[in-house]
C-alpha cells in the first residue's frame, strides 16, 4: 500500500488560513490502512482545525467526506454535490488523490493534509516499512523475494557494501541490511548459487528516471 503521515498542524493551518469554508476529504484505501487519512483521521483533523482557529476567534466551517478511492475519477465525481460554496478542498489522500481532485475541479484550490511517504507493508501494529520503489522491472525473482532497490540504501544489485555490520545497515542499527537478508534467505532456500549470478547495470528508464510513467491497456481502454 501507499503510506502517508499527516502534515504538521501549522502547515495545514497555513494552507486553509484564508478560507472560511473547506471540504475535508479522506480516502478509504491505503491512507485508511496506515491511519493517516481515513474517515477517523478526517474527523480528528476537522475538530483539531476548528478548535485551533477558534482560539484566535475564527470560525472555520468544515464539511467532511471520505471517498472510497480518491485516485479514481468515478469516486471523485461524488464531490460535485459537495464542492460548491467551499473555498478550498483539503485532501487527506496520497498525492494521487490530491491530484485527481485538482484535475477534476480546476477552479478550486486543493491542499494536501498528508505527506505521501512510500509503498510499504505493515511490519507490526503501527509500523510500516518501505518495500517497493515501483522501478518497473521487478528483480524479486532473483533476490529471494527481498528487494535490493527499495531496501538497500544504495540500491546495490549484486551484494552488500562495506557498511553492513551484523546484518544492519550503516545508516542505522534499526535498518536491516537488504543484502544480509537476501543472503540469509538464499541460504535457507539452498540457493546460494543464485548469489553468484551477476545483475548487469540497470536500465532505469522503467523507473522514474524515464520521466512520468503511464500504463496503457488497450484491451481495457474504452
Amino acid at each position, binding site marked *: 500500500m501507499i503510506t502517508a503521515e499527516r502534515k504538521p498542524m501549522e502547515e495545514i493551518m497555513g494552507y486553509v488560513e484564508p478560507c472560511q469554508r473547506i471540504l475535508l476529504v479522506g480516502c478509504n484505501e491505503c491512507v485508511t490502512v496506515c491511519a493517516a487519512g481515513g474517515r477517523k483521521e478526517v474527523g480528528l483533523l476537522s475538530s483539531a482545525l476548528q478548535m485551533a482557529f477558534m482560539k484566535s476567534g475564527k470560525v472555520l466551517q468544515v464539511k467532511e467526506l471520505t471517498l472510497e478511492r480518491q485516485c479514481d475519477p468515478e469516486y471523485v465525481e461524488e464531490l460535485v454535490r459537495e464542492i460548491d460554496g467551499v473555498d478550498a478542498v483539503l485532501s487527506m489522500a496520497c498525492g494521487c488523490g490530491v491530484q485527481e481532485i485538482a484535475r477534476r475541479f480546476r477552479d478550486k484550490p486543493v491542499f494536501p493534509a498528508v505527506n505521501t511517504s512510500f509503498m510499504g507493508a505493515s511490519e507490526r501494529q503501527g509500523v510500516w516499512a518501505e518495500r517497493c520503489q515501483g522501478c518497473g522491472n521487478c528483480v524479486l525473482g532473483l533476490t529471494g523475494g527481498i528487494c535490493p532497490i527499495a531496501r538497500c*540504501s*544504495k*540500491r*546495490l*544489485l*549484486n*551484494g*552488500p*557494501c*562495506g*557498511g*553492513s*555490520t*551484523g546484518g544492519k*545497515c*550503516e*545508516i542505522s542499527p534499526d535498518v536491516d541490511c537488504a543484502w544480509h537478508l537476501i*543472503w540469509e534467505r538464499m541460504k535457507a532456500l539452498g540457493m*546460494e548459487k543464485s*548469489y*553468484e549470478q*551477476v*545483475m*548487469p*547495470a*540497470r536500465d*532505469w528508464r522503467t523507473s522514474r528516471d524515464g520521466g512520468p510513467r503511464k500504463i496503457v491497456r488497450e484491451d481495457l481502454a474504452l
Partner: protein
Amino acid sequence: MSFRKRLLAGEFVVLAEMDTPKGVDISDLINNARRIKGSVDAVVVPDMDKDVMRISALGGGVLMQQQGLEAIIRVCFRDRNRVALQGEILSAHVLGIQNLIVVPGEDVSFGDHIETKAVNDLDEIGLLKAIQSLEDGIDMAGFELKGAPSFTVGCTVAPYTDEEEMKREIAFAEKKIAAGAEFLIAPPVYDVAWFAKFVEGARTLGVPIIPTVFLLKSVGIARYISINEPSAHLPEDLVTRIRKSSDRTGECVKIAGETIRSLKGLSQGVQIDALGWEHLIPAILEQAEV
C-alpha cells in the same frame, strides 16, 4: 617499477591513502606527499570519502603524479551517474592516472551535505564492467570510443564480522573479479590470525590481496573501534597496550609497523591509512622493515 609491474611480479606493494583537502590550500597534501615519496609505491586517493565534499579523487591523483608519486584513484558511483563516471574515467586516463579502485562509498547521511540525493545509478559490478567496456573501446551505450583507456583496476572487500559474512564477501569478490577487478583491497587488519582465515578462504580467487593497515593514532580511536566495529576484530590487548604506553603515538606507529611485518608473508602488500598523519609513514615502514 610501476604499481602494476610490482603486482604482476608478485612483489610486496606499499600504498598510502591520502585524502584531499576541503578547499584549495593543498600545502599539507603536497608536503605529506613529498615526505613519503620514495617510501611507498603509490598513493591511494579517496573519492569524497564519507561523502564529505572536497577536492575530487581525480584532482588529488593528478597532484600526486605532479609530485612524482604514482596515483591510484578511487571511483565511487554514489555521486555520479554512468555518463559522468565514464567521462571522469576517460579524463583520468588522459591525465596520466593508471590505476582505479571501485568502491561503493558511504551513505550520504555520513557526509557534510546530508540534504543531497545519492545517485547510485550503477553498483560495483556495473562500474567494473563499464571500465572493462571502456578498455575495450566501447562505452556503456555501445558507442565506439576514439581511443580506449587502460587501467589496473581493483575493488574493495567489505568488513566481515564472522566466518559466514566472510564467506559471503568472498562470493561477492568472485563476482567483482569476474567483472574485471585485478586486485582486492581488504579491510583494516588488527588481528593477523583473523585475516589469515580470509586469505585461506580467498585463495581460489587468484588475485593479489592488499589489506589495509590503519594507524590507530590514539587509545580513544582504538577503544571506539573495538566497541563499535565488531567486524574490525580489534583485540582488547591492543587497546591496553596503547593505554599503558608512555609514548602512545609511538606505540601506535609500532603496532602498525608490526602488523605490516606480519602481513608480509600473507598478503601482496598493504594500504596504509594514516588519517592525515602521513608524515609517520616512513617511521611505520621502518618498524615494518619494508
